[in-house]
């Protein structure tokens, strides 16, 4: 055995000194040793929970119940007939759409501003990124006050320009807008920096060529910059999708008082994650049902991400083809 092993050429041609066998053992074993912590911990706290969530979702699993009878797909069928689930789904998608689209457009615009010969370059970049490094919980509380009904700053500003006060927490659509404002405030600058990095990689002569063809700044932006940024825009959109559909901290802390996990008295802005929490933990402690929500949420994220890719690819592709045909 040993002889045969020795006869094989070593995987890494490491020149051996006195302790040849030991160092060969070292080169063969070390890699596994180094990646083992990740896989060990991940097996226990990553893979196992993943599979286990699915297993739990097939049971009637009450925290306090002694046994957990197998119920098959019942949790899922019940969920699909659950009006509160669909309500939370619509909330999640609504908040996601009205936050992501303006966020990416604003980020593009902001990146375009930052992509100029600026004084105090790093200062501006830090200023637009600072919302991203704050505590989400803290920001949600602060925005909850800014969007307050009576003494909130936004309603005061609306009053200054002669508009009526809005019930930011009691009106369903208004609460979506307020939460989207929070999300956009946090993430626009971050996306702008990613887009800025991609913008700086665009060769300058493309713009010169476009200028010779008679394209003005705006035209150059839409016909040169945006198409070339497509992969980065898709990346930002997917990151925003994953984050947006998982929204929890912001809507949870936007509402305070009685039963805030429902996102307001009429579930105005309860997201899917909040709905999962409401069912899996206080007040219901129904782990089976909560797990089913978690799996459907996962499916939703996958679907929306895929739609995103298809849609954005189509959009950018058309624009480029038109540009080429011109």
């Amino acid at each position: 055995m040993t002889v045969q092993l020795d006869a094989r050429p070593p995987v890494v041609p490491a020149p051996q000194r006195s302790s040849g066998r030991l160092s060969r053992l070292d080169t063969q074993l070390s890699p596994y040793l180094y990646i083992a912590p990740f896989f060990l911990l991940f097996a226990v706290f990553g893979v196992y929970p993943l599979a286990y969530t699915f297993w739990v979702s097939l049971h009637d699993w009450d925290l306090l119940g002694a046994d957990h009878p197998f119920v098959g797909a019942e949790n899922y069928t019940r969920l699909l007939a659950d009006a509160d689930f669909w309500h939370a789904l619509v909330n999640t998608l609504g908040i996601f759409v009205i936050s992501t689209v303006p966020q990416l457009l604003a980020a593009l615009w902001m990146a375009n501003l930052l992509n100029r010969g600026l004084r105090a370059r790093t200062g501006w970049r830090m200023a637009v990124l600072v919302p991203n490094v704050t505590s989400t919980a803290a920001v949600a509380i602060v925005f909850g006050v800014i969007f307050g009904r009576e003494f909130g700053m936004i309603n005061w500003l609306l009053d200054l320009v002669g508009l009526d006060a809005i019930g930011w927490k009691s009106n369903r659509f208004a609460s979506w807008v307020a939460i989207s404002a929070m999300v956009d405030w946090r993430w626009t600058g971050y996306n702008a920096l990613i887009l800025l990095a991609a913008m700086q990689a665009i060769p300058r002569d493309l713009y010169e060529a476009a200028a010779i063809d008679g394209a003005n700044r705006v035209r150059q932006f839409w016909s040169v910059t945006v198409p070339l940024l497509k992969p980065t825009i898709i990346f930002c959109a997917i990151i925003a999708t994953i984050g947006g559909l998982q929204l929890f901290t912001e809507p949870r802390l936007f509402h305070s008082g009685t039963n805030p996990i429902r996102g307001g008295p009429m579930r105005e802005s309860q997201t899917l994650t909040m709905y999962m929490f409401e069912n899996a933990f206080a007040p219901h402690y129904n782990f089976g049902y909560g797990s089913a929500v978690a799996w459907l949420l996962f499916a939703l994220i996958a679907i929306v991400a895929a739609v995103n890719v298809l849609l954005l690819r189509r959009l950018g592709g058309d624009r480029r083809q038109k540009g080429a045909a011109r």
Partner: protein
Amino acid sequence: MSRLWRASPLTYLALVVAAGLSVFPIWWMFVVASRSSDAMGQLPPPVTPGGNLGANIARLFDNTDAYFLTGLINSAIVATTVTVSVVFFSSLAGFAFAKLRFRGRNAMLLVIIATMMVPTQLGVIPLYLLMTRLQWNDRLPAVIVPALVTGFGVFMMRQYAGQAVSDELIEAARIDGCGTARIWWHVVLPALRPAAAVLGLLTFMTTWNDFLWPYAVLNDPANPTVQLSLRALSDGYYQDMSQVFTGTAIATLPLLLVFVLFGRQIIGGIMEGAVKA
């Protein structure tokens, strides 16, 4: 790089507006934190700090519903432990994936990348059950241990190690008789230092900021992280908002401090594409 367009006054104006909107809520948080409670009811809202910060802090730390000091200490423990561990294990695994040859390497790397795409929500319930079995509920290991390694960290270190450490250097160290462990310590780790710094900063900020999992597993109000203290404060029935804002300001302060000190590195990390949300 070729010359950029010069910024016009209009550009600066737009940037001032954008930066103002970015900074204002944070600034206002500190303003209210330093004033008495009636600052909340004032319209137009006050925009300069007052002299009440000390009194507000005293009231905050005396508040027996929030356990704010415990929250701060717990968050410091959790964030520091997780940061050290993530950087340590990620640099080890990143080095192995970038520079060592072994069977199954690509498949295992794929697994790690795949882990980055799974939402945390999917694991919350079984993790909770697991913690119950381990009797870690309401205790700090419940928030520390599952976070000790991250797929993102491993992937980021692998990407960086691939370009920062040359194969020749490792080969030379081997010829000099270095074992793999010594190569990691003497050759790879020094070269990884910039990436390790960025990863450490990001990990610290994410961990300090985390709400969802601590909220699920730390149910004992007397043993919160600082974000959970904030929740207790904001859900309270009294409306002492200057006290609440003092809490949010203190909870945000470490993050802002890190950002002021290392903002350049963080921005560099984001722009090099090393940073995931």
